[in-house]
């Protein structure tokens, strides 16, 4: 059990969720199922990014009394990496915006043709 620490577990779960998300996007025929697989893909890649910034045995990057006691006022030895967390914060909000846009397009498509299968939308196919 020494090789399985929290950073590697998060990395593995993130990669597996990305593969499950891709499988859903490629295989499904219902538009709503494709959008659900897209959200699973987003969650997986965010997990990968946060897991890359994890350092074993350290705590959250907020300076308060417990962190100062832990590190004898030397903050650089007591916190995990704050930069990937800032990037993932932005990525989650943008993923929500893209999902809501996809659902608005899906509603318009359904109103036009009364069906939700992607095989029926072949107006632009050559």
């Amino acid at each position, binding site marked *: 059990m020494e090789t399985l620490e929290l950073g590697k577990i998060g990395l593995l779960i993130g990669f597996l969720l990305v593969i499950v998300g891709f499988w859903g996007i*490629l295989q499904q025929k219902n538009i709503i199922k494709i959008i659900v697989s897209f959200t699973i893909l987003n969650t997986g890649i965010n997990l990968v990014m946060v897991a890359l910034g994890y350092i074993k045995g350290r705590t959250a*990057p*907020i300076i308060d009394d417990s962190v100062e006691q832990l590190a004898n006022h030397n903050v650089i030895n007591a916190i995990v990496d704050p930069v990937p967390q800032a990037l993932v914060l932005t990525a989650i909000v943008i993923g929500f915006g893209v999902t809501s846009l996809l659902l608005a397009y899906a509603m318009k498509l359904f109103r036009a043709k009364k069906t939700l299968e992607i095989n029926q939308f072949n107006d632009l196919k050559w």
Partner: protein
Amino acid sequence: MLRNFLIALVLASFGFIFLNLYNSYEPKTELTGIAAHYAENGASEVGAANLVTAVVVSYRSFDTLGEITILFLTAAIISFFLKLSNEDENKIIIHKGTSEILQTASQLLIPLIFLFGVYVFINGHLTPGGGFQGGAIIASGVVLAIMANPNMTINHTVIVWVESLSGVTVVIIGVLGIILGGGFLDSTLDGYGLGEFGTVFSAGTIPVIYSLVGLKVGAEISNILNKYQKSQKES
């Protein structure tokens, strides 16, 4: 059959790439590079106790400005797509009332939810939280209000003015940073220094910027959800 085989081939190649990445990954043991600079000098340069907030609002504030722009674009496009046609707007549908438990509980819970959301984005630089989380909490309070009384309409002018004024004020504070401080959206201005570390009025302009961002995000997500709710009415 060929389609299934091609899908399996694509997934297997992704799995092969990820396996190589996973096997060659060595977990870090120390902060290196720019994270070390942020950890050592974050408290003295920016003055915020929450280092993630210091990175998001002060050190990488351009990315936050880009994210605000993307959310604004999303809200605008959804408003354009889900526009009701003219005859549906004049048709007023009176819904029969929702259940009494929902109405009574929503009157008790909605002020508490708004108070919690405002607390989260005002104290973004001291505890975990910030503008985006607070905005999402405020939007969920608004959704509860819409669902408990379906006949209630949200005043569109109020949302538009709150959102636009917040966005313009963030850019004005950023330009003031160029004139009076160290750069665009810097946290220390000439007359408005860093307060005492650890109190609410610390970290310069960070609480002001994050509160405006929280109001803007809350207004935008409320607008998106209101459009989705209104589009249920038409046939």
